[in-house]
């Protein structure tokens, strides 16, 4: 069994197949890093563990900054570890729209439970950081529904290094426990091995062509044969690999994201957000269309947030200890695509067009987030909107309930991408069947974020791991 990718989907697949006694080999494009090599700051992290050093923008009329991990563990090494089970209504929607078989909350329960046990998913145990308490103050003032989000980070030491790889090992990226357990069960992990093409003969995949980097720095193109191939290279690389290999049926045509608009808020009191874990609360009052929450914060990231109106806002950098950053995330009703670039190395070219609904939701979301933060005591709110440097009063915030933010002025980011190879029994809109087996191929599967039929509306790691485990278990049982 070849598994391409070692992120949330690939690691779980490797673990389940290895536990089932199958001969498993995981091919990972990136390197394996040790704990003491993590947490070296954003700049070093971008060099080492981000795909293309973090330069993977999504193109469109409004470009969206997007990053993902490219190391053993994939994006689970650089995310915040927030954990959500797929909401019931989302699963129902997937069943109705994609005919996704056997994916009810009850059927997924053991898969979620298994993943949560593996990762030690729990609420933050330490004292709430200041960036969270001021956010709670605003939520309480507004009287909105909110929740502290559980995280796959038991015993979190609040080092604020989630995005640079957790140096304490508290956050359970796939490299911490899942992959070591898979290896203990017999799986082999090959790092620095980027799969370029799937080799197929008729309706069977016979192996892959991969680029391997040797210890002496030389690179070779090699063929690795396989009986079955699971492509778990992530929402952008999986469709690009399939399409490069000539597999195009509903592949890369339906990329979905959670577009995110960030703000920096200035408070009268010292927050020291750069020294603590990011805010742990999410406002669910306006879910599923809009979520509000806290974002990763360092002086460098603050400067990026302020950079859209830098001439007016740069003086705020000296007050960074009184600032924290938050976000508006919308479910994303626009459509995107993933295509391998013809030019150069065939890297994925990502496109996404914001829908009008997205813009409206972002506008309303900004109004609500800014109102909340002002109610929490913030004196200034700086959104990442060019030409809109500062919101100081509630009246300046609530105008965006009725007005639309200018599309061309938005500076959006996202870390959630999915649905580029949707699964389900609807062949007219899905790339693979309900268990990830790619239509028209006997031994090819997708099993990562690309398989989610549509936006889950929440952080996707839980959905990816549960569905991946379900598919892997189904596969190994069918093989028996």
């Amino acid at each position, binding site marked *: 069994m070849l598994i391409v990718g070692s992120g949330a989907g690939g690691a779980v697949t490797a673990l389940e197949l290895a536990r089932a006694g199958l001969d498993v*080999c995981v091919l990972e494009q990136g390197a394996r890093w040790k704990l003491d090599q993590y947490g070296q*700051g*954003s*700049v070093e992290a971008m060099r080492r563990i981000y795909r*293309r*050093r*973090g*330069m993977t*923008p999504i193109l469109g009329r409004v*470009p969206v900054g997007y990053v993902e991990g490219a190391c053993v563990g994939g994006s689970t090494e650089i995310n915040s570890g927030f954990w959500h089970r797929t909401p019931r209504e989302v699963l129902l929607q997937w069943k109705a729209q994609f005919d996704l078989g056997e994916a009810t909350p009850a059927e997924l329960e053991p898969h979620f439970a298994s993943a949560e046990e593996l990762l030690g998913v729990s609420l933050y145990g330490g004292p709430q950081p200041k960036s969270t308490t001021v956010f709670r103050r605003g939520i309480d003032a507004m009287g909105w529904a909110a929740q502290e989000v559980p995280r796959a980070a038991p015993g979190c030491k609040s080092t604020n290094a989630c995005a640079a790889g957790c140096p304490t090992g508290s956050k359970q990226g796939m490299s911490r426990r899942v992959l070591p357990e898979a290896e203990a069960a017999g799986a082999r992990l*090959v790092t620095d*091995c980027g799969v*370029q*093409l799937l*080799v*197929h003969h008729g309706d069977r995949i016979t192996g892959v*062509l991969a680029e*391997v*980097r040797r210890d002496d*720095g*030389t*690179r*070779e*193109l*090699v*063929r*690795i*044969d396989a009986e079955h191939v699971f492509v778990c290279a992530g929402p952008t690389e999986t469709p690009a690999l399939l399409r490069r*290999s*000539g597999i195009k049926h509903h592949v890369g045509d339906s990329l979905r994201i959670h577009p995110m608009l960030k703000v920096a808020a200035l408070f009268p009191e010292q927050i020291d957000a*750069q020294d603590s874990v990011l805010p742990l609360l999410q406002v669910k009052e306006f879910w599923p269309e809009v979520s509000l929450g806290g974002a990763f914060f*360092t*002086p*460098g*990231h*603050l*400067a*990026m947030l*302020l*950079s*859209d109106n*830098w*001439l007016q806002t*740069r*003086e705020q*950098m*000296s007050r*960074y*200890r009184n600032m924290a950053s938050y976000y508006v995330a919308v479910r994303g009703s626009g459509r995107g695509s993933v295509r*391998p*670039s*013809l*030019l*150069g*190395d*065939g*890297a994925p*070219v990502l496109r996404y067009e914001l829908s009008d609904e997205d813009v409206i939701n972002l506008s309303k979301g900004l109004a609500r987030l800014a109102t909340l933060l002002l109610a929490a005591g913030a004196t200034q709110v700086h959104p990442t909107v*060019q030409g809109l440097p500062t919101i100081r009063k509630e009246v300046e915030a609530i105008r965006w309930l009725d007005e639309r933010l200018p599309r061309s002025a938005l*500076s959006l980011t996202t870390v959630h991408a999915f649905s580029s190879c949707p699964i389900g029994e609807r062949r007219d809109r899905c790339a693979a069947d309900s268990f990830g087996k790619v239509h028209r191929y006997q031994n090819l599967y997708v099993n990562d974020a690309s398989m989610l039929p549509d936006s889950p509306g929440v952080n996707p790691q839980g959905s990816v791991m549960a569905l991946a485990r379900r598919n892997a278990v189904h596969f190994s049982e069918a093989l028996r």
Partner: protein
Amino acid sequence: MPSARSQRVFVAAIGLLGSAVFVTLALRHLDFRAVLSTWGSARVLPWVPLAIMSYVIGHFIRGQRLRVLVRRETILTLSTATNVVVVGYASNNVFPARLGEFVRAGMLAERTGMPLSQSLTITFIERLLDGIAILVLLLVGALSLGTRPEWIWNVARVGSLVFGAALAVVLVAVFLPSVVLATASRLSARLGARWRDRVLTLATSITVAGAVLRRPRDAMAICAYSLIVWLFEAMMFAFILPVFSLDLHLAPALVAMSVTNLGILAPSSPGFVGSFHFFCSQALASQGVPAATAMGYAIVVHLAFYVPVTLWGAGAILWYGIQVGATAAMARAARSSPKTDTVSGVPVHVIARLEPARVPRDASAFDVALTEALLTPHGNALDRAALVEVATFLTQEMEALPARLRVMFEAGMATFRFYVRLRYVRSFCALDLERRRAAVNSWAFGRVGLLRQLFRPVRSIALLAYYERADVARALALGTNG
């Protein structure tokens, strides 16, 4: 299947037949006494030595071009690279049907350790660039001449078609490597694993060989060297004009050189006997030079072309101990099945060696100047070391963009630099900090959305790298940096 021996006999026969045809064409209606008479009045000194020197210098430039072509793979000394080139030329003078190109590729493979298919592709790229350079010089020469015979345009048209098609193939291999690999994989799917691997090895070698042309600076250098090489060869043709009391002009020499070199692409005997003389004399005769003089000229040029390089090549072959048999053995080795190996204990079939990973570029003077303009607050000066570090990070981040975006970004920055030169009549780097900042801000915060988009990632990455520095955060906390 014909045997290797019968193939060689067939190739030699075709070559000899070609030569016989061209010798007949060249010599018919020729007044041999007049040819001898032109030789009697020939002025060998100083022109023939000058011509030979010019030709030899051209070979050193060919060697330098080869060094650039292979520098992603290996470091060749100028003398070795030149000798590889010369051995190829000398072998063409000894073997029929341009078999010298294979000898050259074989020696290149032996000297560098690269696969023969890759060195053959490099040789092909060299010869393609030669063809294009010759065509360009033919057009320049023809346009400079008073008389412009129609056949020159016909030659140019045919040459453009042939080299244009070859160039298109090379450009696809160079710039769309993943497409080439995918296509090769798909086309060879039914051939079985062994032959499919061979096809993939070949396809990969071709794309790897052309990788150097993806760097604009290297590509420009290689093209420039190609033009210079053939200018020197044209000078060889020019220096022999006064030997026969013809005026020393570059234009007729350009035409004669171009026509001759395009003409000897046709199969002929070793040393291009016949075809060389026919095309060279015809090129000169079409410019009003008497047939006997033109033939005398062609014979001397051929000797200058043939003798020194053949001797030099023979010496180089002896020096390096290269034999045709060894080259053939290498070719056989290159054709053998790809080897099986293991990677982290997993069995793999090695298809091909790839070019080394690209070394991240350091910041240029422009990158540093731009970073300084983006970061520096009014009245403050940034630490130089920090500035260079941030600029280097910024440079490497922008290099990491997917190919298409990188091209768009670089085009945008080139436009910005051009705008600055027009607006301030100086280069961006030569402007003082205030003007640089004004120029950057006029685009980065101006009214045109596209220009704002160009500077948005640059600014935010520079700011990220700068404010992530521990010393900057400390200074901020103390209120000494803003």
